[in-house]
């Protein structure tokens, strides 16, 4: 939660009263400029905002949030409600409380806002996704969009991939970062995914290749990771051309899979199985493709 208030005494009392709320971390700012700096890195669940502030006003911050399409709920606290009524009406997701605000009322409204946001997030994430994570990334690249793709994995971990003006920028997932995180977020079983507009990247650029190449590398990393203990392929040792055939089929299969030519990908991986019936990477990919083609 972000609190923007320039009266220091009030700010401290708000901080003390609100940080006791379960699961809420509080960040305090004395100006809109400071709040904007925090918003680069933070995605607050709710903002408590004063209107009359030194420098930019609370209305300016609301306009910035509207331009970014941030959709974050805002609770405006002001002693001049009537004066700002018309201006505030332009912004959705804004609730106005007149100062002095009873702390109990403020706590109750914040909890209601956070609960509603969690519910909407959950409902949106639980909807059937039309696209895979890799598709979303390619879409963002093709439209030169600046977005954050947020993914919830089946094991409860959450991760985030940022694309800035169509270029892959950063990825993080728990303790994983960059390429490792990208592979995990694209290929691990997930329960939810959503895309948000990105006002600015939250960190240094970690990727320096085209997204297509990164996706292919992530697919290779992922497929080769569990393959370490596998037995040496007898056929490959006996016949170098069979090994080359296998590698070529496997590589083309991955490429077809990434481009969603699922029939072609399945055909190529079946050919791989003929060459190496026990290859776990191929079984793994075939299972994924068949699951994608008929999720039931």
């Amino acid at each position: 939660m972000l609190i923007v208030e320039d009266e220091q005494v009030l700010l401290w009392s708000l901080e003390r009263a609100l940080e006791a709320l379960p699961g809420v971390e509080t960040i305090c700012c004395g100006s809109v400029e400071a709040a904007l700096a925090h918003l680069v890195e933070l995605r607050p669940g709710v903002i408590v905002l004063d209107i009359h502030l030194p420098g930019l006003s609370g209305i300016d911050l609301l306009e910035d949030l509207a331009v970014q399409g941030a959709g974050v709920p805002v609770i405006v606290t002001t002693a001049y409600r009537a004066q700002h009524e018309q201006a505030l009406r332009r912004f959705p997701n804004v609730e106005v409380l007149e100062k002095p605000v009873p702390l109990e009322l403020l706590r109750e409204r914040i909890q209601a806002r956070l609960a509603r946001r969690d519910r909407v997030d959950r409902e949106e994430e639980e909807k059937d996704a039309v696209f895979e994570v890799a598709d979303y990334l390619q879409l963002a690249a093709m439209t030169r969009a600046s977005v954050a793709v947020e993914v919830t994995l089946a094991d409860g971990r959450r991760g985030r991939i940022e694309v800035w003006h169509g270029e892959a920028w950063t990825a993080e997932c728990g303790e994983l970062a960059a390429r490792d995180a990208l592979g995990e977020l694209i290929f691990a079983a997930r329960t939810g995914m959503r895309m948000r507009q990105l006002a600015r990247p939250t960190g240094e650029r970690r990727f320096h290749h085209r997204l297509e190449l990164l996706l292919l590398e992530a697919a290779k990393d992922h497929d080769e990771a569990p393959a370490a203990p596998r037995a040496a392929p007898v056929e490959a040792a006996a016949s170098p051309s069979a090994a080359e055939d296998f590698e070529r089929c496997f590589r083309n299969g991955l490429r077809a899979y990434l481009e969603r030519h699922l029939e072609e990908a399945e055909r190529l991986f079946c050919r791989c199985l003929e060459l190496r019936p026990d290859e776990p990477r191929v079984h793994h990919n075939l299972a994924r493709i068949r699951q994608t083609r008929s999720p039931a």
Partner: protein
Amino acid sequence: MSVTAIASPKGGVGKTTLALNLGYALARRGWPYLVVDADPLGGIGYSLAPHLENRLGLTDVAAGRCQLSAALLKTKIPGFAVLPFGSGSGAELNAGRLSDVFFQVGRLGFHILVDTPAGLSGLTAEVLAASDFLVSPIQAEPLALRMLPRLLATLAGLNRQGRAPRLAALVPVMVQSRVSSSVAVLQEMFRLFPPGTVLETYIPRDPAFLEASGHGVPLAQLRARPPAVAAVFDHLAAELEPLLALASAEESDEPIPILD
């Protein structure tokens, strides 16, 4: 000069109507536009000039059977012209030849909107490979949403070869604002795609489209006082302008006084 393909994975979504009316609206905003008909069924040619059969056009210029100037149809609207499909079968067209024709058009000072056949393979893929931007009309119905991964796969394939146009925008079409399932699909499109990809402007389902098509005119030319839906394309043109990189260095961005 920029080339914008109007293409969609699904047929019958109003690509021809969109190309014709959008081209007209962009020309009225001061951008010279040529609408190229790359559909062998010749929707634009038939729509505008139904009496002219076997007219020269894109296929003839591409195959070197005639000069561009002989095939180009000028209209009464300043800065708005049309290049029909022509007398060929379409076998003459590939990305290289299309690029050559587009280059010639560019030398005449026009930007280009290309109307494509239904689907994304064959001729449409060649047009996409020769285009800078893609504007895709998406029908506000569930089936259209499920077909979007096809569009994505085609663009990814072209991207791999370094030939993909930039996906400038998805335009919701045939929207029925009083039908809840249609509105639900529209909301779903906003949720699914990167912000800004699905345009705020949508094309409603309206009988005036049929009427205009029957008369072979853009909606705004249907009558002296055109139907309200004609204004949608002005809105669409204004929203697309920055997405199609249409900007003039000389133009002032200041308010224009209404009094001397």
